[in-house]
């Protein structure tokens, strides 16, 4: 018997988180690539922090940060009447923080390698900064965007330590695939564990395959 609720929940979590990360991460990566401010190294380090912290540490601090007795959690409680922890929204916030470097770093890299040359050319042709971003930067940095999206999505799919701390393992709300697999393994339900894990593996592989195949068509040819 396949636990479909866990699968659907996991996909929803990955989709929401990746979308939010795309909206938040793109301007952040752009700022990092183009700014000359002294605060840049600090922001870069902060963005990379989730990479080096063990997920359980991150989860623990999130537990404190999102608690109803904290500023953020309390605000959420007054706004919606329910807690941030043990909720899907809380998981989305946790995922966004946890997968931030996977969105920002590939984008930052892509923007930096683009350089100023195409931007100046566009400006000399009357393109405003916003126009330039959509008509030049995004098409030219296609691969960077692709990498960032795929990595963030995949990273969230496999999220475990953080979810374990702030999720509460509630079916249909916070019981994602990784928690379910873990539980099955711990209780020696290897059959169930295999089934879910295989599904996750196949799905991830197919997604990656489709993405890299479509990307191949638009590879820049080297004359």
């Amino acid at each position: 018997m396949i636990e479909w609720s866990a699968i659907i929940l996991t996909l929803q979590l990955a989709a929401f988180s990746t979308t939010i990360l795309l909206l938040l991460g793109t301007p952040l990566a752009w700022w990092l690539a183009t700014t000359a401010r002294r605060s840049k190294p600090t922001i870069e380090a902060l963005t990379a922090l989730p990479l080096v912290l063990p997920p359980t540490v991150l989860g623990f601090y999130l537990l404190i940060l999102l608690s109803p007795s904290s500023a953020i959690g309390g605000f959420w409680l007054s706004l919606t009447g329910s807690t941030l922890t043990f909720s899907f929204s809380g998981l989305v916030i946790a995922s966004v923080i946890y997968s931030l470097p996977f969105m920002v770093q590939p984008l930052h890299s892509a923007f930096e390698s683009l350089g100023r040359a195409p931007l100046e050319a566009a400006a000399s042709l009357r393109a405003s900064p916003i126009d330039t971003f959509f008509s030049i930067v995004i098409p030219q940095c296609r691969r960077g965007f692709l990498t960032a999206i795929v990595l963030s999505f995949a990273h969230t799919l496999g999220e475990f330590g953080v979810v374990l701390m702030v999720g509460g393992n509630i079916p249909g709300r916070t019981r994602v695939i990784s928690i379910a697999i873990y539980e099955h393994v711990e209780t020696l339900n290897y059959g169930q564990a295999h089934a879910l894990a295989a599904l996750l593996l196949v799905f991830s592989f197919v997604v990656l395959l489709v993405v890299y195949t479509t990307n191949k068509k638009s590879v820049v040819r080297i004359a």
Partner: protein
Amino acid sequence: MLHIDINTTLSDFDLEVNTDFPAHGISAIFGRSGSGKTTLLRCIAGFHPCHGHICLAGKDWLNTDQQLFVAPHRRQIGYVFQDARLFSHLDVAANLRFAHSRATAKHQFELDQVIDILDLQGLLSRDIQDLSGGEGQRVALGRTLLCQPELLLLDEPLSALDQGRKTELLPYIKSVCDALDIPALFVSHAIDEVAQLAAHTVVLEDGKVQSAGPTLEVLEHPGLQRLTGRFEAGVVLNASITSYDEDYQLAQLVVEGQALVLPMAHAPTLPSKVKLFVRARDVSVATVRPQNISIRNVLPGKLLTIKTEHTTPFAELSIAVGAQVLHARVTRAAVAELNLVENCNLFALIKSVSFDPDD
């Protein structure tokens, strides 16, 4: 008129330029590599930060006193970069449309017109990576025109090209700029390009203006000798090509009614007017017309002035050939030996080699 009065700090020196460029025609910014020419152009475009005042036809683009800075995309400029900078994710036609669709000023150049002038028809569906250097620069030029600029800026448009491509592209630039009614500034470290294209020249050295004015006057300035090892003062002659000898690969030209020959590998389009740069060191003089000599070009003229440099073995002669003037660099000893005095008649001998516009 384009008024520039700016200063900015560069790594080796400070750029301080206070000069005006004419409202029409091509002006050149000439100087050695690293003299600040490109930076000046970039400051005018708004790509490089600087202080001061930049004003085109009464419109302020930069005014530090009034804390005014117009962003590059709001300045009605057209910028041709040294490396073309075509957008690789679009083909040639799309690159052209990119500029055309964003032009806000009234349309002086239509798409078809530009394609025509620059012979871009055959390139339209090509990918950027498949273009040669010269083709790329042509497309870049076309793209720049399509944004209907009020000021055209060309940053060493020929320096990234090999000799053959330069020869191919120069006439395009010339015809395009001749057709414009707006000022064009181009940066170059090649005296020949400056001589052929520009009516007005500003010379930069270490970020400061050395001289500015009509190209002919500026190029004759003896101070220019310092600027490049290869360069020496010389003059520009106006000539027209009348015929071409395929056998000997020589072009026949006429300067002030006098016949000249010029080695030319490929047949030129006839008839055509050319500007030729003649270095003083390539001109010798004779008091009688020499016989049995390899030099083909012998022009009778009148000696106008003799300028001796007492600290060197040399003297510089100015010789009138019809309405045009030639300079010759000879030894002081020769002047004394030949009894050369002002207003005497003599013959200017020009080695064919110095005429080659490919130099």
